[in-house]
Every structure is written in C-alpha cells, then in structure tokens.
C-alpha cells in the first residue's frame, strides 16, 4: 500500500541517490584533477600545488599554472561537454548509440580540421575555429536532410551515418595526399589529444561551455515530459519540436566546441550517457551525471596515457581502448533488451 507519504519518501530516496552519486562523481573529478596537477616529470606535493594555486610564486609555478592547469581544465570541461552532448542526443533520439561521434558531427569537425592542418597548416585558434564551423555545418546539413515528416530519430541517425562515411572518405583522401609529418599531426588531432591544451586554446572552450551549458541544464527539466511522446508532451504544455530543436542545437554547440579544442576523443560522448544511466537507474535524463562521467573518463584516460602507458599515447587512444569493449557490450545488451539507454 502506498500513501502519499510513502510516495514522497520513495521520490526523495530517488533524488537523494542521484545527489549522492553526483556528489561522489564530483569528488572524483576533483581528486583526479588534483592528481593531474601534482603528477608529471617533476611530481609535486599537494601543499606545493595548493600554494601555487593560491598565488605563491615558486620555481614550479609555470609548470602548474601554465602547463598542467590548462590541461586538467580542458579535460574536465571537454569531458563534461562530450557527456552533456552525448546523453542529450541519446535521449532525444531514443537510441543509446546515437551519439555525435556515430552520426557524423564529429566527422564533420574532423574533416574540416584536417583540411585546415594539411592545406593551411592551421594551428591553435584557427584550427579550433575551422573544426567548430565544420561540426556546425555538418550538423545543419544532417538536420536539414532528415527533416521530412515521420520520426526524427531513425532518419537522422541513418542520414548521419551516410554523412559520416562521406566525410571520412574526404578526410582519408586528404591524408593520403599529404606529406608524412603533416599526416602525423592530423592523425594525432583525429585521435583526440590534450597535448595542445594551453591557455589561449582553452578560452573558446571555457567561454562556450559557460555560455551554453546553463541553457541545457535549464531546458533539461522538460525532457522527462518529452520522453512520453510528442502528443502527450503537447498535452502537458511543451512544444516538442521547438524544445527538441533547442536541446539539439545546444548539444551540437557543445560537441563542436569541445571537438574543436581537443579533437574527437573517441567514445566519451557515446559512453558517458549509458554509464551515467546505470549509476542513477531511475533518472530518465541523467544530464549532470553524464557530464561528470565524461569529465572523469577524459581526466583518467589522460592520466593513464601520460603516466602509465608505455608510449605517450594521445588520450583518444586510451579512451578508445577502454571504450571499445564497453561499446560492444552495450550494443549486445541494448539489442537484447530493446533499445534504451
């Protein structure tokens, strides 16, 4: 039997669990970030790092604030952006595999960035801008091509896969034409790497994220209603098309700005959502959890690639190696149980 009080209790338990998980994840992000600041060729103690952060100037100041801090920040913010964008796509398109790296948006950013590297030798901000424009343009094309009545999800995914194939071919063609050293730079970018994470390259990411993410967090409250289908959502006072368009545009902006800064770090956008929804079972749109999960994936993968791997791999290789088996597992499960994230 359930009285109004037990209903309330169960609901609060659910909320508490979500809050607890989020708090634990946030704590993990912080400790990994601190670890990232301490470790390096010249490892520092916790108090040294702390003193530098509060403004004390020492010999290691530059290493911490000039090299490690931007790297750690990039990892956190890009990871969160990947997580936000991925889970938004997955929930709105009702498919656990419909993340931006499968449906072509990352491929668009990549093609444009590789063109920049190989044709104009673009680096830094110019490269970021090119990738950003490439990602946004591709997303626009995919959306336009899949606007044709009927269900948005299915067609968008298939059109996206088609676009991804096309853009990948273009990228490979450019790679085959270029000289070896440029190719290496391009390939590193394509794998996703934090090696160029210095302050100047970080600002677009930070400001873009700060500008856009709050809108996503605000709009997120309507998503549970949207999940009941367009008709029910309309009945409950949501404009489904407008809301979905808003959410997807925000997600595209996030993924584009993050990809532009770090390159498409494999599988972060794809895996953050499903992992998050396993951590908070009852939450239908685990946005914050997915963002924190994304940050943790990128941060820890970067630590592994810098300090544990035999070769100094770009971070994307590590996420790829961790992500690949999980993706296959996810695919097998998603298909056995019907599709849900």
């Amino acid at each position, binding site marked *: 039997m359930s009285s*109004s009080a037990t209903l309330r209790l169960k609901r609060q338990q659910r909320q508490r669990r979500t809050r607890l998980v989020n708090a634990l994840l946030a704590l993990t992000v912080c400790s990994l970030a601190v670890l990232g600041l301490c470790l390096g060729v010249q490892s520092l103690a916790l108090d040294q790092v702390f003193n530098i952060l509060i403004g004390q100037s020492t010999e290691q100041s530059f290493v911490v604030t000039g090299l490690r801090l931007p790297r750690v920040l990039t990892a956190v913010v890009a990871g969160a952006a990947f997580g936000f964008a991925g889970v938004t796509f997955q929930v709105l398109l009702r498919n656990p595999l419909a993340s931006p790296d499968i449906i072509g948006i990352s491929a668009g950013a990549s093609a444009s960035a590789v063109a920049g590297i190989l044709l104009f030798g673009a680096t830094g901000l110019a490269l970021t801008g090119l990738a950003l424009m490439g990602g946004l343009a591709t997303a626009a094309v995919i959306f336009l091509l899949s606007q044709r009545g009927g269900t948005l999800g299915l067609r968008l995914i298939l059109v996206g896969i088609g676009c991804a194939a096309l853009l990948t071919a273009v990228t490979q063609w450019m790679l085959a034409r270029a000289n070896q050293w440029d190719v290496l730079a391009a390939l590193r970018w394509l794998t996703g790497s934090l090696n160029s994470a210095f302050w100047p390259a970080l600002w677009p990411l930070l400001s873009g994220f700060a500008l856009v993410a709050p809108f996503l967090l605000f709009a997120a409250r309507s998503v549970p209603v949207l999940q009941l289908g367009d008709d029910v959502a309309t*009945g409950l006072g949501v404009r489904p098309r407008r809301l979905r368009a808003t959410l997807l545009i925000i997600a595209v902006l996030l993924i584009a700005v993050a990809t532009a800064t770090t390159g498409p770090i494999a599988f972060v956008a794809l895996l953050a959502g499903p992992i998050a929804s396993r951590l908070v079972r009852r939450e239908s749109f685990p946005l914050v959890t997915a963002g924190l999960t994304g940050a943790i994936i990128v941060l820890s993968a970067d630590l592994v690639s810098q300090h544990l791997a035999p070769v100094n791999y770009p971070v994307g290789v590590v996420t790829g190696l961790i992500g690949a088996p999980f993706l296959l597992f996810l695919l097998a499960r998603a298909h056995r149980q019907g599709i849900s994230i």
Partner: protein
Amino acid sequence: MNVIAPRSDSRLHAEQVSVNFDGHRVLHAVDLHLPAGEISVFVGANGSGKSTLFRALARLIAPHDGRVTLDGQSISHLPTRQVAQTLALLPQNPIAPDGIIVADLVGRGRYPHLGAFGRWSHGDDDIVKASLDATGVADLAQRRIEELSGGQRQRVWLAMTLAQRADIVLLDEPTTFLDVRHQIDTLELIAELNRDHGTTIGMVLHDLNLASRYADHLFAIAGGRIVATGTPEEVITPETVKSVYDLECIVVPDPVTGSPLVVPLQRQAQRDAHTIRQNIPPGRDATLP
C-alpha cells in the same frame, strides 16, 4: 447540420476549422462547441476525419483555416503551459520510456503546474496519490510500466491525465487494444471523473454502442463534416448509421441502460436492406425478422 447553437457554458470551441493532409482537405470548416461538464463522444467511420478533428481540438495539429479557442482565446496563441493547466489530453499510443515506474510516470502529469525549475511540492505528491487511487493503481505505484498488463497501463495513463487536474480532458480512443471488461472499466472511470469533478470530457470512440451508452452528447462525423449532433437518442438512428458508416442496422433500446443499441444486419440482409426496411417498421421498437 454544421451550425450548432453556441452554448454559453462551453469553453472549447472549433470555429470554421479546416485541415488539409497532402493537399487533400480532410476537415471542412467545422464548427463545434464542446459542452461543458458533459461527456461528448466523436464517432465516425475510419477516415471520416474524427481523429483529425480531435487532434485539431487538442492543438496537436494546427488548422489550415479557422481556429480553435479556449475561453474565447485562440489556443495556438495562448502559452502552451497555460493551456495544459486547463486542457489535458491522452493520445492513442502514448510512449512510456523504458524502466519508468508508475509513480514517476503519473507525476509527470504535474509538469504544467510546476515552477520554472520543476520544484516539487507536497501538494503534488498528494495529487499524484489521489490520481493513483482514483484509477485503482495505487498498489502498482513502484512497479515498472512494462511489467503491467494492457488494462493496467491504460489506467496508469489515465492517472497521469488526472494528475494534470485539468477541467477539460480529451481522449483519443481510450479503449483500443483493451478487452471488453477493461473497456467498460475505463469508460466507467471516465464517467466517474465527469460525475465527481464535473470534468468536461471529449473522446473518440470506435464502438457505437459504448459511445451511445456513455455519451451525454454525440458528434457523428463523415467526410470531414459533422453530420449529426445531439443526445445519443437523437443521433443514433438507422438513417444516421447508414449515412455515417454505410451500414444497415436496426436500433433497439439497450436492455441495461435504455440507451440506443445498434444491431447491424447480416450481409445478405444488408443487400436486401431496402426490402427489409420496407417490411419492418422503422424506429427503436423494431425487431429482427
């Protein structure tokens, strides 16, 4: 019969509403006033436009001409959340996300009443509880939707609609895919809601006899127009059934409620309908030859 005398207590109106699909006009300048505090049922053959009319009233599609008004204001210009506080609707095949539990689903009916940040109050819990009780699914509150039977699911969706606490509730074929017992259960529930809270109900039903039993007011739709409207006794006649469904039938009083009951003739009789109709006296007291 397209013109209906305006009723002062009606809140939801269709004014000269026309809808096109793929260039075809499927609704022709329909005028309609949904009677307040009553159960109105839309009946008509497949493809008659009744679902389209329903969807236009529920603001699920925008009319190409004319407008739908709620309390005198065009429904498409009102803020949609504000409309949702007055007008609830249950479409035909609502989608439940995987793994969602009943209480959570019903709680989503509170959405239009929550503040900008979705803050939840004790009052909302009470309303969810009351809705679960009203539909008899309180025991299932912590169960997952996919564990429930079809009849239970339909009750849960009704509970979600109730939780919206709207004065007007529109339902699109709430009894499809239900067996006969659950059909009756569902309609009794809707009638109860109307009786106890004075909720205005508008629904589409396929089954003429159920429509006739539960409706206060019927709208018969054919060819994108309202061809007959009024009480079941006024609307359900062999002539109207023939013109709406192209079906020969006789109409007898329902032995339980006394409402008109449609009894279709057999196919051979359909062919000979003309002759039969001449042989039996038309009207409610007819019996099968």
